[in-house]
């Protein structure tokens, strides 16, 4: 069939215009998509920065709370105790005391000083258990769990199959604090009565598994992840370069797994 050259030309022009329009649509799409992707990246980075800020805030808040507590403890136990000791020492200086009165005052002084000594040891121990420092992480955790077991309010089962010498010594304290925080959380918020802590080795990584039988929490609720304790755990976990996973159901306790 014979076609006019004009028909051929119009067909070519028409086809060319159509291809041009389609390429134009795709190019415009690519341009706007790139813009949107970059905006999304920036938004994500901003969110990350915000999150880091809240973590830092949490750490500072905890620090201030600790300082407050130490100040309170020092004031209540040690300051006041030493005050009474100094009053008693002054009383010793009064002329004309007979031996029974002297003995009574000396006994009071001895009693008070031993109590103040005991308090200061306790405060130091709460701040940093000497067992952890001298005998290592395993002994430190053992002592911690035994202390809690002795109170009778909770029964902690601690098993260790891992080798802590693989973990750098700086991380030992962090792990200890993490366990302390978890136990505090379980007892205070979860009202747990049984806790199981175990360290195992899995494919070259040390895995800490922590399970309690408390009232758990709904992991869908964002407020539960905003608690001070959780933030501190998160900070410490990131500091030692580990990964954590929390599984929880309401009334079914929580299970925490940390891979170091």
């Amino acid at each position: 069939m014979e076609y006019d050259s004009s028909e051929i030309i119009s067909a070519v022009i028409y086809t060319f215009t159509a291809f041009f329009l389609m390429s134009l649509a795709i190019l415009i799409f690519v341009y706007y998509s790139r813009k949107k992707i970059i905006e999304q990246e920036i938004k994500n980075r901003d969110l990350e920065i915000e999150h880091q800020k809240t973590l830092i805030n949490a750490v500072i808040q905890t620090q201030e709370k600790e300082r407050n507590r130490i100040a309170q403890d020092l004031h209540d136990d040690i300051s006041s105790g030493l005050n009474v000791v100094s009053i008693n020492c002054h009383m010793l200086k009064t002329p004309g005391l007979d031996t029974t009165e002297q003995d009574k005052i000396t006994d009071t002084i001895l009693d008070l000083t031993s109590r103040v000594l005991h308090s200061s040891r306790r405060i130091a121990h709460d701040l940093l258990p000497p067992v952890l420092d001298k005998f290592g992480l395993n002994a430190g955790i053992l002592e911690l769990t035994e202390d809690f077991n002795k109170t009778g309010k909770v029964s902690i089962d601690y098993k260790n199959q891992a080798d802590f010498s693989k973990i750098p010594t700086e991380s030992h304290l962090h792990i200890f604090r993490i366990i302390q925080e978890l136990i505090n959380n379980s007892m205070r918020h979860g009202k747990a009565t049984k806790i199981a802590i175990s360290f195992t080795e899995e494919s070259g990584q040390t895995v800490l598994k922590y399970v309690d039988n408390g009232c758990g929490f709904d992991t869908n609720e964002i407020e539960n992840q905003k608690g001070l304790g959780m933030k501190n755990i998160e900070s410490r976990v990131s500091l030692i370069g580990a990964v954590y996973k929390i599984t929880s159901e309401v009334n079914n306790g929580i299970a925490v797994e940390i891979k170091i």
Partner: protein
Amino acid sequence: MIEYLNHFFSIYNQLLCLNFLLFVLLAIKTRKKTHLILMVYLLVIVVIQFYSGYLAFQGIHNTHISHFYFVLQFLILGYFYYNIFNQTFQKNIIKYSMILCLLILGVQYAIYPEMYFKFNNLEIFLTSYLLIIYSLFHFYNLLSAKKSFLYLNIGVFFYLFGSTVLFLLANLSIVVDLKGINAILNKVLFLFYHIFIFIEWIQLYLKKGKLNPKKVIHGI
């Protein structure tokens, strides 16, 4: 009639009918507007395929059915995209472009009614092009939203883009002889299109069954 039925159920039409039945199932279960629209779309395609195949089987001209195919596809899929968009700007674009397109085609048929019996180039290109633009809108939305109707969108985009390119090349067949390859390629595109529709059905069907009683938080 029975011979035609045997002829009708080629692999392409089998896949088409399977997809239609699957979407009927899905629409009944979920009763969502978007799923209903997709079901209606597949129904229209099945009917058009059946009827045009029947006409061809009897040796009657079936070119005019193509108009129903393109316009109905444009209307139904356009309405589908109208329903899944959230931005007013995009919804307005769909509304006005659809009205404009129908007006243009209406005017064209009013002036040249004999085009009803031929392939209408403008109609084919305009309807496919607008649908491609809507699917590009949806791709843009998907960049920052949850994955929804991704596979269907990919299918629609590739199918319309491919069939438009094929159609434009077929137009040029007066200059270059294509030796019928465009018909084969069109069938391949159709196959891929319905495979994507099937994948989308799987996604939609599985989504409603997912329950999450225990959630897991991952850190760092």
